[in-house]
């Protein structure tokens, strides 16, 4: 897939090639401006004029009619609601665009994201985190098979970010196919079955978070003792390693942890860029 915005000198997407299996959570991990959101916009048909071939369920994207939009749900990066309407009215207004309306009861959806008390209040009184949670339930209210989430935990406090990640995993368990874009290593690591690193409109590497972390980290544990001593031991046959067992006897263990790389470290090593880079 190649895409160039009209008026731009070069393409924003420079030949992306990837596939997402049914029931999988697939993530694009990359810094701002890498092309993550642009790729999603092509897939949910906001942007036209791409080069290449995009197939959804074996059918070319351009051949899908309006029924495509009944099958997809989009959670945008930024809140986009009618501020003068209540949260419930916003959901009802959008449900009117679907031939079969919404398939989930509003109350259940609002309870799911802890917004039940605010569902009848105007959205202009909501915090950014509340609006983001409203984004989330609007995306799923018509029970789509394919979900796009652009920075799904952006603007959320850690508790609500954790809850949204859990809801995304629940959706996966219901068989939904989910495409997430994020620059949050924790989000990608926590929910994605596979991630692709995207930099400057190109995919650099695709694999499971576990493989990436173990491939680029050390197969070892690091032990810190209370007396200040620190030592690393290979994971292989760790329980039968006499040096390791002897080391543990020297003092109380302060910390013991594996030396696999974090996704962010892998990203930096592979791409030479930080996830926070513009």
């Amino acid at each position, binding site marked *: 897939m190649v895409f160039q915005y009209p008026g731009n000198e070069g393409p924003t997407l420079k030949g992306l090639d990837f596939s997402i299996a049914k029931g999988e959570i697939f993530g694009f991990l990359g810094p701002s401006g890498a092309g993550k959101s642009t790729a999603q916009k092509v897939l949910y048909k*906001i942007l036209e004029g791409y080069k290449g071939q995009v197939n959804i369920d074996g059918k070319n994207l351009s051949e899908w009619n309006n029924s495509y939009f009944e099958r997809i749900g989009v959670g945008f990066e930024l809140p986009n609601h009618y501020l003068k*309407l209540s949260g419930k009215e916003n959901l009802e207004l959008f449900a009117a665009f679907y031939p079969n309306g919404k398939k989930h009861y509003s109350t259940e959806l609002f309870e799911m994201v802890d917004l039940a008390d605010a569902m009848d209040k105007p959205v202009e009184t909501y915090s950014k985190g509340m609006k983001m949670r409203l984004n989330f339930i609007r995306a799923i209210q018509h029970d789509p098979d394919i979900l796009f989430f652009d920075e799904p935990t952006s603007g959320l406090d850690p508790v609500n970010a954790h809850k949204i990640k859990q809801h995304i995993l629940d959706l996966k368990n219901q068989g939904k196919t989910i495409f997430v874009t994020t620059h949050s290593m924790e989000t990608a690591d926590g929910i994605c079955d596979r991630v692709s690193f995207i930099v400057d409109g190109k995919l650099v590497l695709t694999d499971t978070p576990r493989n990436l972390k173990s491939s680029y980290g050390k197969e070892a544990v690091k032990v810190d003792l209370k007396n200040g001593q620190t030592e690393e031991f290979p994971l292989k046959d760790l329980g039968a390693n006499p040096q390791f067992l002897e080391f543990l006897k020297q003092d109380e263990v302060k910390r013991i942890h594996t030396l696999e790389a974090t996704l962010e470290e892998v990203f930096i090593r592979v791409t030479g860029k930080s996830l926070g880079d513009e």
Partner: protein
Amino acid sequence: MMNSFGSQLKWQFVLLQKNSIITISIVVTLMYGLVLYFLRDIGSLDKLLVALVLNDPSVIGYFFIALAIYIEMKHQILQAIFVTPFNLHHLFLSKVISVSLIGMVCSLGLAFSVKGFDFNIAWYAVGSLSICILSSLLGLYMLTFSNEFLKFAMTSIPVFLAFVNLPLLQYLGVFEMGVVKCIFPIQGSLDLIDYSVSGTAINFGFAIASIVVFIPLFYWLAYRRFLRKIVHQ
């Protein structure tokens, strides 16, 4: 169960009310209506009424529909709508009809304040509704040239003057354009309003034909441009 179009029309009225557009329209109409009511003993106000009716509902149609879309653009709501199986004809028509009905009701209010029930309400309603529909479609077309309301308002000045005030000046006798006036999109509606309030003899065939030609033409132009510049931007 309410069908998709009916439900969208309902929501457009809800949005207009929540954004105070209906209230503002009614208040402005009441102010105009009161002024006209107290002036009605000083002589015939037919010309002033027609001038107000041409300006007030057309402003409601033209600017309020654009304002509604700019609010949706500013808050990126359109983007969210465009990833639903929405029907652009339904969306377009629900916006145009809701704003136009408000404009028509306001213009009827103005006429009642001057004429009581002593005018042809049916033809007057047809004329004022047509002006509102045409001006709202023109507003939808023009907004595709600017990405913010202020810019839209500035570029609208010459367009709006030509759209409303050229036919008005011709009607007031400032100049005579002969058959050229037939190219004014609101000329047919203006003739119907003139007939309704003053009983002026008009060519009904032309008035109806003008409305029947210009509304679909404006709709087609606005729809195509909106689809190309806003939906598939």
